[in-house]
């Protein structure tokens, strides 16, 4: 039987399904007589399948905002907008603080004001971290268990990072912040369009209290906040409508109180 020559390159191209019909048939005939070579090529195909199965899911992951921000014009505007929001907020807070000083209110502020202070702190944290491109969080969502464990430990309360995919947001990660009553947990979420929402969670000095949702607007940042027993929550966003943010707040509340 006269033997056709098959090169290693042709075997590779065969494994990739890139030979024309004639050469493909020649390789198949050649492999038919060599089971060990046939097995080798079959394994190459299995490895290719396994590679695609392992990495193709990355294609479905939401694209982080920082990537599109790397691509020019519109993003830069967003960054300026964020800075502007932050400055407006600073001015607003300065005004409120001045007004409070003027009134010379003592430390024992009414309960509602405690919540309002939390909302303000949450809005500041949101304005500070949500435009962050490179370091939006300290610990990413890929280490969610570690993140939640760490923050729970620091706050001294069992926390959970709500799953918000149903309302269009996925966890980016979180960080630890200083707060009035001790450490604060700060979770960041992001939509497919790059819109960010942050959840500020702190321990409450007076426990066993529950409040309804309250709403505040600090500069450009909208905040829904509430207290549920030992923990106070504030959900902030700069570019989500009040109604949409309320939906997310509801989702958070329901997940934390099943």
């Amino acid at each position, binding site marked *: 039987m006269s033997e056709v020559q098959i090169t290693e390159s042709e075997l590779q191209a065969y494994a990739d399904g890139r030979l024309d019909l004639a050469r493909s048939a020649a390789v198949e005939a050649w492999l038919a007589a060599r089971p060990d070579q046939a097995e080798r090529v079959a394994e190459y195909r299995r*490895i290719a399948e396994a*590679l695609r199965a392992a990495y193709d899911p990355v294609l479905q992951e939401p694209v982080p905002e920082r*990537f599109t921000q790397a691509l020019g014009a519109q993003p830069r505007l967003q960054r300026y907008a964020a800075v502007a929001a932050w400055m407006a907020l600073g001015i607003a807070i300065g005004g409120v603080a001045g007004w409070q000083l003027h009134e010379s209110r003592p430390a024992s502020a009414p309960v509602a004001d405690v919540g309002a202070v939390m909302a303000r702190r949450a809005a500041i944290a949101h304005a500070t971290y949500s435009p962050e491109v490179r370091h939006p969080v300290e610990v990413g969502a890929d280490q969610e268990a570690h993140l939640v464990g760490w923050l729970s430990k620091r706050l001294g309360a069992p926390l959970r990072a709500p799953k918000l995919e149903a309302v269009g947001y996925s966890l980016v990660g979180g960080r630890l912040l200083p707060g009035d009553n001790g450490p604060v947990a700060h979770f960041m979420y992001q939509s497919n369009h790059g819109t960010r929402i942050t959840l500020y969670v702190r321990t409450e000095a007076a426990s066993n209290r529950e409040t309804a949702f309250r709403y505040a607007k600090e500069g450009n940042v909208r905040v829904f906040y509430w207290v549920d027993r030992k923990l106070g929550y504030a959900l902030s966003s700069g570019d989500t409508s009040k109604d949409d943010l309320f939906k997310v707040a509801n989702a958070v509340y329901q997940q934390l109180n099943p």
Partner: protein
Amino acid sequence: MNEAQRLVDLIPRLRRYARALVGDRAAADDLVQDTLERAWAKLHLYRRGTDLRAWLFTVMHNVHVNRVRATRPMDMLDDEMPELAQRPAQGDGLLVRDLERAIARLPAEQRAVLLLVTLEDMSYEEVARALAIPVGTVMSRLSRAREKLRLMMLGQSAAAKLTVVK
């Protein structure tokens, strides 16, 4: 469609390749970020009408090589990475891990060729252009990468069998 939008559309593919190339998610996304920034700054060097994807992967390759050179010179050697401590495979969940680990142990330039061919489905000529190497080199690296992976995977299943027999 303008180039910026086309670059945005290619981001998921860049991420997939980067994830497989460098393994670690954060490091892979940093590579994507640097690539996009560089591509955006160098967009005037891209010739309209040519293949934007190929150009972008070339940019990523150059960024990656520079980063590797700056941080991990060992990775550039055309030798296998040192043997890592291996756990025996225990089920499907670990198979992906095994595969990832095996890929990480391939020499960097073989890994790049295999991934561009397999994940990006690039022609051998496109890979040669993206990596600035001859097609013959693409073929030999592809062949060596696959054979090494095959042997590593064989070794792992052999190790798994040994622990079962124990």
